[in-house]
């Protein structure tokens, strides 16, 4: 279907946290590919490892990371600290969840925004001009005035716009958005999602959107990956996953969400496992209504069906 | 929570500090038995003798054995430190919880009084009280405890203000639990870790204050072997009998350091939640 260029490729990515007496395997062998213009959603519940994944992609994760992260043909894992610094923001950037804590409270908005340019070699005056333009692009009224504002003088939605401006400032190849709207009200969330959608189009950005909300994913993404307990259990085109979810967890997620339909929801029993001691075999088997003996013993191998990838022993049977 | 406190005792530094504190408490309790000499009896023939076999830490200007004076002095220091802190902390918790939990006019009154007491740095406040009330063991204890009470009230009040808005307190209120019960069952237990850390630090500070008063000659009056008082009288002989000031000061330092290290570690553990 897509013959576009590959922007990023993640191979066998693992992130472990060493806690002394135990190891938390937050991300445990994940592969995926981002193509140009893709908006790839990574959906999972808390404790699925999705935020760790996001941070590790830009090499800001404090845990032990292994595997390959290839962005624009360069393996980030092989770069020196100095090289990765230059890579950040210019090739790969990130948008965080909490707009109120992500900005430095004692620095002016303009100063924080201009910094992105100056650190990557722009002159002060050029940085200023570009920053003002950028603020206008992300829909902040009175941009010149706002350059002189401090973060606490802006609303949550406005702060998130500033952060988005920073992320797209140098026109990077890949933007990671980690729950960009979870801290915002729903009407503001709609505005921000809309902005992200428009920017992706006009800038030709490729994005990874990390979220717990299937609805948010559906809103702006074209491909989707479902994470559960450190594993990517299903990856595919948005429409095809929504019309035909193959993994039992994906199905459960979709039937858990109230959608204005009356009648009882079908909740999953139990909760997300402890990642320092995940279940043997398929990590989902204790909560899975279709689990058989094989699921308890053997870890399922990735199964490729057309454009779909599923991690389940019982694909096709259920 | 208990596991966190266990973590405290695992640290070697804390173990060392605890042993030092216990050593001084032990000295205070058994002073009559372990002290080699009478701490008060004067023998001018032995004035300012340097440390020797007979007098391990030497003798002071009036020929009294310094080791014995330090041993008996630990009684005063430990008493002052624990009693003053207990008084200050009790008053601080009492007024702080009332102020923070009930708010309103009671809060305003307590706050104003606290502000007045905070109008002077703690040590000066203690000096002011002993200056007016005169110097003896009890006025020193009361002055030191009053000097630590206002900041204690402030801290406890702040904590109580936070806890009273917490959901489990609101839920208990909705069930009809009365305020006294809520205070003892929810508020005080939940602010106790921070209080314990603060109390530990105050044990050290109260020693510094009490012996500071002694040093200035307005603390526990001579001939009582109070460490600060010993330093104050001994400093006149600094040019030819430095041992008079080295050992009492070292005792103060060790004890205060021990309390401070434990208090710091406690604070660290609470913050690591």
């Amino acid at each position, binding site marked *: 279907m897509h013959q576009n260029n590959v922007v990023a490729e993640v191979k066998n990515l693992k992130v472990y946290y060493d806690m002394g007496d135990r190891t938390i395997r937050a991300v445990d062998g994940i592969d995926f590919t981002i193509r140009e213009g893709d908006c790839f959603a990574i959906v999972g519940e808390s404790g699925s490892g999705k935020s760790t994944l996001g*941070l590790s992609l830009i090499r*800001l994760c404090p845990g032990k990371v292994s595997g390959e992260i290839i962005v624009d043909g360069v393996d980030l894992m092989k770069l020196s600290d100095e090289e990765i*610094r*230059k890579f*950040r*923001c210019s090739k790969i*950037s*990130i948008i*965080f969840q909490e707009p109120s*804590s*992500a*900005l*430095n*409270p*004692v*620095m002016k908005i303009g100063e924080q925004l201009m*910094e*992105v340019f100056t*650190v*990557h070699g722009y002159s002060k005056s050029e940085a200023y001009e570009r920053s003002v333009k950028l603020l206008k692009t992300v829909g902040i009224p009175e941009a010149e005035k706002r350059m002189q504002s*401090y973060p*606490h003088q802006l609303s949550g939605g406005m702060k998130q716009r500033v952060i988005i401006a*920073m992320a797209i400032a140098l026109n990077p190849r890949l933007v990671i958005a980690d729950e960009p709207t979870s801290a915002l009200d729903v009407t503001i969330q709609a505005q921000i999602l809309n902005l992200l959608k428009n920017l992706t189009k006009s800038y030709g950005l490729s994005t990874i959107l990390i979220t717990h909300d299937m609805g948010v994913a559906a809103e702006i993404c074209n491909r989707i990956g479902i994470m559960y307990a450190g594993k990517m259990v299903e990856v595919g085109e948005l429409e095809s996953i929504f019309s035909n979810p193959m993994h039992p967890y994906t199905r459960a997620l979709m039937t858990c969400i109230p959608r204005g339909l009356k009648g009882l929801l079908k909740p999953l029993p139990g909760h997300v496992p402890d990642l320092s001691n995940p279940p043997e075999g398929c990590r989902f088997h204790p909560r899975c209504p279709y689990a058989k003996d094989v699921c308890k013993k053997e870890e399922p191998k990735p199964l490729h069906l057309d454009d779909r990838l599923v991690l389940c022993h019982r694909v096709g049977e259920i | 929570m208990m596991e966190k406190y266990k973590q405290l005792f695992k640290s070697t530094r804390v173990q060392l500090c605890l042993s030092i504190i216990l050593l001084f408490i032990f000295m205070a309790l058994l002073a009559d038995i372990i002290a080699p000499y009478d701490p008060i009896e004067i023998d001018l023939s032995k004035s300012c003798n340097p440390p020797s076999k007979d007098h391990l830490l030497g003798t002071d200007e009036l020929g009294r054995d310094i080791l014995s004076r330090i041993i008996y002095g630990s009684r005063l220091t430990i008493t002052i430190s624990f009693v003053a802190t207990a008084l200050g902390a009790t008053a601080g918790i009492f007024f702080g919880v009332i102020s923070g939990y009930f708010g309103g006019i009671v809060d305003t009154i307590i706050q*104003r*009084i606290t*502000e*007045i007491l905070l*109008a*002077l*740095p*703690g*040590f*000066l406040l203690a*000096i*002011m*009280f002993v*200056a*007016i*009330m005169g110097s003896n063991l009890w006025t020193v204890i009361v002055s030191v405890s009053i000097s630590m009470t206002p900041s204690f009230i402030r801290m406890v009040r702040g904590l109580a203000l936070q806890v009273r808005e917490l959901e489990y307190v609101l839920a208990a209120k909705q069930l009809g639990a009365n305020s006294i019960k809520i205070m003892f069952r929810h508020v005080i237990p939940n602010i106790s870790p921070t209080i314990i850390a603060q109390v530990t630090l105050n044990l*050290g500070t109260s020693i510094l204050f009490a*012996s*500071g008063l002694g*040093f*200035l*000659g*307005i603390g526990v009056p001579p001939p009582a072997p109070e460490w*600060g008082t010993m*330093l*104050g009288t001994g*400093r006149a002989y*600094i*040019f030819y009998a*430095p041992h008079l*000031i*080295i050992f009492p*000061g070292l005792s103060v*330092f060790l004890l*205060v350091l021990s309390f*401070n*290290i434990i208090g710091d570690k406690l604070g660290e553990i609470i913050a690591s939640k």
Partner: protein
Amino acid sequence: MGVKPVLSALKYFFYRILTLAITLIGLVTLIFILIRSIPGDPARVLAGMMASEEDVNLIREQLGLNQPIYVQYFIYLKNLFTLNLGVSFRTDSPVISEILARLPNTLILAVTSTCLAVALGVPLGILAASKKGGKLDLFLSSLSIAGISLPIYWLGLILILIFSVELRILPAGGSGTPMHLILPTVTIALYLMAFIVKITKASVVDSMEKNYVITAKSKGLSERTILYKHVLRNALIPVVTIVGLQFGALLGGAVITETIFAWPGLGRLIVDSINSRDYPMVQGSIFIFALLYALVNLATDLLYTFIDPRVRLK
């Protein structure tokens, strides 16, 4: 700036001055009550046991002790706030002139030691924070907690022992030359520095864990730039406040240091007056101390509103 923000800042300033005055009135009222509540004739208490009947009568006259208690109280307040602090029993000169003569010495000591402590303590605190968990951090942190636990009077004596008794390079006490300033300054500065190292480190470590640091990293800033540009700007705000408050508390510590080094400041004046039962002098110097302390705290608060944009007076 328009007229309105200036007005609002002025309003705040007057509000603070007003609360300051109320607090001071509270404090002197407390002293008034305490002195009156001591059993016996207040005039006799104030004059001391050795005073002659004439002196006692003179004091009774001065303080209006023959009049009803509320009149006494107002006379007392009026006297304090017009800085008419009475006459010293010991020297027979006005209390206020004695105090004013000593005050500069105390201030010199406080300012030099604070400067020294800040100049050394802040960089060391930052250093400890940036090497958090390492050997240097352990060393500096241990040194800092030891410094805080050191009884300042003992530290002073030990310094005298080393530099005056053994090495004979610095005077043990007195005033007059810059040499005399060194030991008292170092004594206070060491304690204060230990304290500053501790809070600076805590504040810097705290700021380094904030989300905006990750944001800064994601922009491609180097660790060094992040520390100097982002972290310190946040971390030093509480440090400034605490140093301000400590400067006030230093005035209390001055009592001890001035006594050790025979430094003719306000602190030693208090101790000498207490020991010679010169009550007007004690009362007067405590009042002046409280006034100074309050002014320093007020200045610190105003400084805080100036350096932190979040509370800046609009």
